């Protein structure tokens, strides 16, 4: 089993790397601090977050997305064509993101996350994965005043994200992950989501992953197994039926299971985690199984987020088939 995180991690930690980011951003917004000073604070926290993941024993790390306002803003604000708008609910959570508005054709004018990736991977000897919003989810979270149609927008975003994914792989990312929580909500055009993923992952010289979380994936795993990506992420915590849906699916790819609740502070026991490992171990060989929390850990206060990572490491180390 390979232990990993999904994406974001608490940006503030009262008992560890402090809450200074809040004041730093406020001052930066008032132009009392320069971009370089903000960057310096973000890098310090990124380094601390990477160290915590190492100490928890994770095999594949993330940069914790310390600079990210949400999943879509970091990408939307660096592309031409978007304006960042008001708050919308972040799926079924009491948390909010800023909804980008597409006014004109989206254009990628240069790398988006490559510098951040290089910094993060330089902080550790362990592999750091690169995370991007998936094209289908990205579009679902935007207001479209340009294409006025889902399909051309999703396919265009797939091309743009493909360029970024290739750049991230070139910068050394051994895994490029696309987050697609939106496929689990509402009437999903899964064929379009997969067509877009195939474009986004095309020619990327790294392992490619698609992560789903929060929603109901019943009926979607079979089509997802046909997507041209290497690794499928499934949240087993939010929706109890998901494990049953997985059991009915012929798993032909590597699997990543979300087995700790990133949205509740209650700490899972080693025994509970072992039971999940056992159940999923019947579906996929353990060397093709990634284990992680069900989503980014930023929903949790820092102490509980770190406790979950440590518990994951502990459960994997003590697991005997």
């Amino acid at each position, binding site marked *: 089993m390979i232990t990993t995180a999904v994406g974001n991690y608490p940006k503030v930690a009262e008992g560890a790397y402090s809450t200074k980011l809040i004041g730093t951003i*406020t001052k930066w*917004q008032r132009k009392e601090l320069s971009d370089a000073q903000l960057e310096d604070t973000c890098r310090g926290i990124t380094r601390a977050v990477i160290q915590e993941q190492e100490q928890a024993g994770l095999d594949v790390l993330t940069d914790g997305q310390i600079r990210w306002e949400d999943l879509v803003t970091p990408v939307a604000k660096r592309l031409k064509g978007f304006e960042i708008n008001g708050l919308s609910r972040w799926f079924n959570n009491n948390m909010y993101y800023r909804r980008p508005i597409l006014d004109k054709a989206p254009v990628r004018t240069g790398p988006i996350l490559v510098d951040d990736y290089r910094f993060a991977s330089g902080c550790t000897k362990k592999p750091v994965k690169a995370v991007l919003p998936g094209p289908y989810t990205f579009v679902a979270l935007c207001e479209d005043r340009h294409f006025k149609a889902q399909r051309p927008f999703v396919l265009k975003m797939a091309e743009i994200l493909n360029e970024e994914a290739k750049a991230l792989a070139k910068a050394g990312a051994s895994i490029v992950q696309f987050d697609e929580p939106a496929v689990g909500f509402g009437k999903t055009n899964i064929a379009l989501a997969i067509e877009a993923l195939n474009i986004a992952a095309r020619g990327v010289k790294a392992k490619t992953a698609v992560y789903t979380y929060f929603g109901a994936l019943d009926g979607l795993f079979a089509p997802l197994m046909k997507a041209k990506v290497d690794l499928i992420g499934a949240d087993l915590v939010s929706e109890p039926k998901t494990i049953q849906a997985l059991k009915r699916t012929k798993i032909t790819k590597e699997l990543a299971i979300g087995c700790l609740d990133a949205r509740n502070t209650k700490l899972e026991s080693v025994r509970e985690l072992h039971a999940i490992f056992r159940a999923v171990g019947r579906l996929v060989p353990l060397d093709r199984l990634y284990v992680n929390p069900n989503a980014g850990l930023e929903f949790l206060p820092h102490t509980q987020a770190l406790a979950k990572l440590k518990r994951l490491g502990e459960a994997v180390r003590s697991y005997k088939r």
Partner: protein
Amino acid sequence: MLLTTSVGSLPKPDYLTKARTQARKGELDAKALRELEERATREWIRTQEELDIDIIVDGEQYRGDMVAYFAEYFSGFKTSELVRSYGNRYYRKPIIVGKVGRRKPVTVEWWKFAQGLTTRPVKGMLTGPYTIMDWSFNEYYPSRRAATLAIAQVVRDEAEDLERAGAQYIQIDEPAISTRPEEMDLAIEALGIVTKGLRAETITHICYGDFNAIGPKLHKLPVDQIDLEFANRNFELLDFFKKRGRFPKAVGLGVVDVHSHRIESTDEVIANLKKALKVFKPEQIYVDPDCGLKTRTPEEATQKLRVVVEATKAVREELFD
């Protein structure tokens, strides 16, 4: 008919905002803070009387977050380290760590204080069980359902105490109800525990969310009046009610947007009220702002309330002619 009211919170005057910060830092004692909270409450009640609002609120000058306030006074909760809500905004999210209960009534003393200042009815203001559950972490109850139903019993006790103290109107806010439409039945069941057999007129306020998903079950909410935001959706909600035939409950009609600095004109509110009168009967409508006004300045809030009253009076007069 067409009684005017407010949704709950009103802005805190500067002196109170400063005092609350000082109290948090330990620079101001509880008694001194309490005096300022009473002063602000007195001022808001006088303002509402001067504006000639029919059903008064105490303005919640002594409350911060609508869930954290109850979590602080109920037993079974503790508070967390900071978690991010969006952008650079963080809050302390309550954690349920034990059986939820109540040492003594939480809101009754303030309600009595406010009602003692006016002969107009003052609403009792509670946060609903589903919202308290959804906006808290849960480490104690085995499920979201178990937590919600346990909280419902405690909120029920509070509602009974308010009624016994003389409250004619009791509002139980459920802004979280639209987060997970699949849990609407749970929210309905829990609210039923709170309101069962109460003689007071019961109200629930619902805001921000996917109205299409919850709308079809709205009439099942076990309250007499459902208060909704109409203004910030350009009164598009009226179409929903128009299509569905006569709505069996009273409707709280939000006619001014609480998120915008712009003060609506009396004429536009009159026009919107007349549109609403094509869908609802006059005796079915209560007129108020979209939501609590606490994010506006005291001046903006007063002006918006004045528009609510003036427009309503103009429409009432036409109806009598």
